């Protein structure tokens, strides 16, 4: 056969798109610095930060050491001692992981323990605590429980304060109710009996503690729309999700940048001299970006599972989040590349855009657990929505719980991609 007898060949566009995507994916896999950036960096950072926050499984803080000096002498006619009740609450087994209580003979000894750094906080219970609580007159003097804290140990102080405060709040509530009842009884003419009743009510409350409480408060992280939160989210998973999306931006940027690189190297113009249409070629490039970041995400998710035993949650929801995240990263990177002219600009402008989005979106600061205003600010970014979705799925949520967390970023992705495609069409018309 001669060399000039070519007839048109009609291999379908899809297979050419795949050929371009496969070529770019393979070339990324051979690029060690790119791999380090796409895979090693997020894993290493997640490991490091996860370790810094302790344990790798959940946020845990070592138990706060509290010195207690209980001087409460009780009050005449009442068996219960309020000071002992407060100390009992602090020593309850439920709180063992949070505070360790050491008894001190005097207020001075307790303060010294803090001054010497042996304790974080001293709780000093006055002699007249029981007297104040069981007083029958509303004008009885107020007792003051003193918290003496090392100012550098804010968290320990806050924890102690909330535990002690909780206990005292209960007393105050009981006393207020009793006084109200006694006020009613006094109005009915039996002042002394009413005072006794109030005292008894307070005492009963004290003895039974919170056991018969009608209302209790349980602490939970803010919820995304959807089912009840039941699972504890590992901190490493939360961090890795943020890092993964952040580094997916860079992974996508790496591949999208090859459009400029290939333009300069002459392979893109050469592609344009082949019978493969420009739409197919650019479509191939877009696919390269998407395929590469999807592979990056899957590797990171699997690595997170294997290395850090992260439970990512339900497979269908994770798959959907991964694909939408890949679409966002691809669309954004293509948009950035379509706006710049040189590889240097692609690097600098890309890095700036991704960093700002990551800061606003919360890639470095954890997810929706932050709550409040910040959760709203996160929602200005597609990555913020994705992270909140990821958080919900890690807490046991399913597809039904993350509809908006998929839809909103997808709309972002489509918008990014549309603008990028328009710009590329113009540039390579």
């Amino acid at each position: 056969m001669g060399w000039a007898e070519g007839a048109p060949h009609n291999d379908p566009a899809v297979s050419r798109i795949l050929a371009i995507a496969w070529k770019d994916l393979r070339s990324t896999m051979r690029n060690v610095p790119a791999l380090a950036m796409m895979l090693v960096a997020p894993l290493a950072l997640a490991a490091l930060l996860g370790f810094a926050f302790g344990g790798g499984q959940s946020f845990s803080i070592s138990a706060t050491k509290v010195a207690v000096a209980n001087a409460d002498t009780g009050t005449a006619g009442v068996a219960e001692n309020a000071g002992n009740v407060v100390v009992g609450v602090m020593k309850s087994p439920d709180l063992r992981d949070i505070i360790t209580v050491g008894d001190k003979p005097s207020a001075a000894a307790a303060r010294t323990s803090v001054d010497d750094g042996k304790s974080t906080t001293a709780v000093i219970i006055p002699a007249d605590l029981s007297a104040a609580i069981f007083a029958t007159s509303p004008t009885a003097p107020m007792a003051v429980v003193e918290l003496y804290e090392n100012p550098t140990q804010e968290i320990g102080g806050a924890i102690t304060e909330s535990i002690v405060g909780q206990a005292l709040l209960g007393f105050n509530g009981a006393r207020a109710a009793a006084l109200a009842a006694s006020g009613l009884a006094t109005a009915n003419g039996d002042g002394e009996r009413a005072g006794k009743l109030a005292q008894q009510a307070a005492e009963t409350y004290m003895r039974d503690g919170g056991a018969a409480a009608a209302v209790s408060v349980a602490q939970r992280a803010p919820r995304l729309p959807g089912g009840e939160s039941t699972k504890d989210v590992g901190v490493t998973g939360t961090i890795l999700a943020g890092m993964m999306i952040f580094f997916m931006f860079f992974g996508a940027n790496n591949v999208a940048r090859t459009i400029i690189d290939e333009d300069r190297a002459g392979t893109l113009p050469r592609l344009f001299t082949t019978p493969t249409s420009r739409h197919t070629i650019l479509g191939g490039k877009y696919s390269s970006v998407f395929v590469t970041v999807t592979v990056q995400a899957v590797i990171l998710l699997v690595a997170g599972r294997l290395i850090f035993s992260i439970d990512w949650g339900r497979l269908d929801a994770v798959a959907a989040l991964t694909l939408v995240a890949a679409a966002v990263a691809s669309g954004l990177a293509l948009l950035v590349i379509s706006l710049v002219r040189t590889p240097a600009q692609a690097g600098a402008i890309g890095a700036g855009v991704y960093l700002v989005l990551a800061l606003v979106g919360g890639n470095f600061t954890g997810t929706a657990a932050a709550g409040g205003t910040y959760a709203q600010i996160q929602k200005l970014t597609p990555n913020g929505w994705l992270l909140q979705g990821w958080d919900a799925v890690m807490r046991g949520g399913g597809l039904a719980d993350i509809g908006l967390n998929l839809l909103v970023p997808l709309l972002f992705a489509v918008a990014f991609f549309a603008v990028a495609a328009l710009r590329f069409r113009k540039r390579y018309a």
Partner: protein
Amino acid sequence: MSIVEVQELCKQYDPPKGVLAVDGVSFHIDKGEIFSLLGPNGAGKSTTISMLSCLLRPSGGDALVDGHSVVTDSQAVKEAIGVVPQDIALYPDMSARENLLFWGKMYGLAGAELHARVDEVLELITLVDRQKDRVEKFSGGMKRRVNIGVALLHKPRVLYLDEPTVGIDPQSRRSILDGILALRDQGMTILYTTHYMAEAQELSDRIGIVDHGKMIAVGTNEELVRSVGEEAHVELSVDHYLEGMVERWADVPGVTKAMIDEERAVLLVQDANEVLPRLFEAAAAAGSRITEVNVTEPNLEMVFLHLTGRALRE
């Protein structure tokens, strides 16, 4: 029968102020011939190739390739052509074979046919035993060969080669030129650009000389040389009696001019082959021995000089 018809092709980069890189160029290429565009740097050769490859839209004019307009029917044009760009356009991190397979797919080849074509091309560019090596590890000449091989995968009807021998050793150049002649002998039509006069002269069936975006002369090598009426230079040295000999040679038929340049005689002759024996006879008759002869046939270099007043720098 012409397979390429270029009509008043123009290209202005960045109008309205930009360079008029190609300025009303017209020529045609017959089926099965090698046509060279010969011109110095910046003459507009690559720009012309880019327009004929549908890579650049002409600012004016049109070209028909295999009967299809590069302006309105680019898809059909691209099916018919193979383009070897001036700068090597390959993926350096991929092997020669991987490159060929990828580009073959872009030309629409697939499956067994693709692999067979890649094997054939590797054979042709004599890189069968290096096919698994990454292109970045190749020598300049080997890269050039792969660069050409890519454009041959789909058996194009017209092959464009834009300065394919720049910056390589004489041996690689030789093998590329021989390869091009072999392709022509198998019926491929070739558009070749170069600024090497000798290459154009050796390869081409016809040559277009371009300068500053304009086609200043077109024809066969002989036609071009004859058109400017250039003559051959004959330089002669004799053992003695140089001045007397020059006077005698001046009278030999076919010699239009004879002069002395340092220790040699320099003659301008219309046809060196015809005149040389007479020059020897005249010397023998005068009792002189010719010790050195140097004949320079008129060439494209002279044509270019004649037409532009400038040398075609090599």
